[in-house]
């Protein structure tokens, strides 16, 4: 079943001016439910722009984008917020936790924005924290956690809403290789449990952990191949 369908998408900055930049220059892409896809490319290749569009943080200048069959490219700001809260879980390189909130509250925030009732939030937050092995650090603030732990809180925040897709943007970029491997293993096991994971990285070793690699260069897909015979 098609989860993501991007049809001939362009993202153009300063269109028509001398300093026009084509961050995406006609990208078409289909991702099935349950896939573990890596998007790789040099910096400036457009992979972050692609992630922002796939994650509904941004809309393409031209082209169509369907997520779960809904046309995202024509949505308003409020509708995009709703899609993000329901269908997308983000994991960032810099963790992006809110420093004034505890681990528990950071994870809970995603449920609050989704409109989950208070009585149901506690169990789901604790379940997510347990899934990443941090149930005992629920009351700690980000500053009291190590980088790997912070990233795991971020993963808990991403998966607590049961999103259709988890987008991970260089999730190991700020971590040492051992901790990075743990995070990668966590993403793999989430995928084994049925989650669709999209990993954005410039690190081919990481990308090789996934099932499919899409290489971007100058805003275009130059390679798209499967590593293992995975059928969606």
């Amino acid at each position, binding site marked *: 079943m098609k989860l993501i369908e991007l049809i001939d998408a362009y993202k153009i900055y300063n269109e028509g001016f001398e300093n026009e930049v084509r961050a995406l220059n006609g990208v078409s892409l289909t991702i099935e439910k349950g896939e573990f896809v890596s998007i790789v490319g040099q910096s400036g290749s457009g992979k972050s722009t692609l992630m922002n569009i796939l994650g509904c943080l941004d809309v393409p200048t031209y082209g169509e984008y369907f997520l779960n069959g809904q046309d995202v490219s024509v949505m308003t700001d409020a509708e995009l917020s709703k899609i*993000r809260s*329901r269908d997308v879980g983000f994991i960032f390189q810099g963790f*992006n936790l809110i420093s*004034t909130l505890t681990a528990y509250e950071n994870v809970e925030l995603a449920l609050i924005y989704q409109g989950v009732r208070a009585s149901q939030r506690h169990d789901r937050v604790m379940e997510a924290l347990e899934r990443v092995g941090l149930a005992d650090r629920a009351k700690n603030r980000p500053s009291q956690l190590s980088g790997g732990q912070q990233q795991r809180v971020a993963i808990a925040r991403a998966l607590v809403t049961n999103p259709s897709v988890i987008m991970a943007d260089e999730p190991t970029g700020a971590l040492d290789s051992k901790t990075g491997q743990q995070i990668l293993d966590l993403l793999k096991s989430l995928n084994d449990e049925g989650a669709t994971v999209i990993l954005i990285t410039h690190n081919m070793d990481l990308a090789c952990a996934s099932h499919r690699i899409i290489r971007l260069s100058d805003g275009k897909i130059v390679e798209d191949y499967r590593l293992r015979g995975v059928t969606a």
Partner: protein
Amino acid sequence: MAGKSIAANKVRSFLTMLGIIIGVAAVIILVSLVQGQNKQWKEYYESLGTNRVNVSAYMWNGKDITEDLYEYCLRLDDLVLGVTPNGYYYGNIRYQSKSTDGNREYGTPSIALGSDLYSVCNNYELAMGRDISYLDVQNYNQVVVLGAKLKEYLFDYKNPIGEQISIGGHKFTVIGVYAAKGGTINPYIDYTAVVPYTMNRLLNKNNTFGDFTIKAKSSEATTEVITRVTGFLTGLIDPNYGYFYVYSDNSWMEREDEANRMMSLVLGGIAGISLLVGGIGIMNIMLVTVRERTREIGIRKAIGGSRRSILIQFLIEASVICGTGGILGILLGVLGTLVAGKLIFQLVLYPDVALSLGAVAFSVVLGIAFGMYPAVKASALQPVEALRAE
């Protein structure tokens, strides 16, 4: 959520509040004090009674016009109720071991040198004994009528009539006590005593008076009295040897009212400016906060926070800061008003309720308006741009 971020930045939140606290408290205290002063003046004039005509005469040939003015006014008995010179003697009053120099609360009183009509002119009523008589004045009797507070201080519950007290070292016999009339507003009105004006020679070593009060029968009579007395004094006082003024309390009261209104406006304006500065402080802090928290806004948007929910969060933060500041401001303002009222006017002043609420409402509206503007800007950012902020 909003509470969290306020609590997480205690110092900053408090400093922001401080602007509002000081602004609100300043408005309340300053305006209350002016109103207090106004009230005190009003009550003072009301306690003296209305329809009073004041005469000021300055003679540089040493001539005293007291007797002449007194005689003349008594002849206008269809217009005038009473007339008295206004002289004062400041000095210690002693009864046995009690002395006014030792009174910590009120100190040494001013003793009025008046005619037998002093009480009529100044709205005093006898509570016991008798008043000063015409003969007391004429015969240089060393007699005194005490105000209620002074009687209370010197004699407590004892009957003072017939007792000897010492005024500036001279023996006086207490012949009467006036009923209290000042209440709590102006206790000094009752912390006084009256002796015949001819005691001026004994107490002040002086024979002349320059200040007189005439009590007219009605406000129409007041105008007539001013005309008549002016005519009389023009004939009496040679312009080469002196000059005089005749004026009514009523006009003085109006001028006082006007001055108070001006003062209210000026001080209220100054306090209003400080409130405005407090509001600008809030905007400044909010602007910095939002800038600092643009990334947080980006995160919130990325994980599904809508523009509305983020705006509401900032709105609650701004309201809580301003509201708390406003309430603390009221507390400080009320406290300050009570303390300042006690220190300056010796009376219990309460701030105007409408004024206090108005000041708080103003500060909250200001804080929210100023606090929202940067939040509106930040929440309109694309989440990608907001996330890129460092």
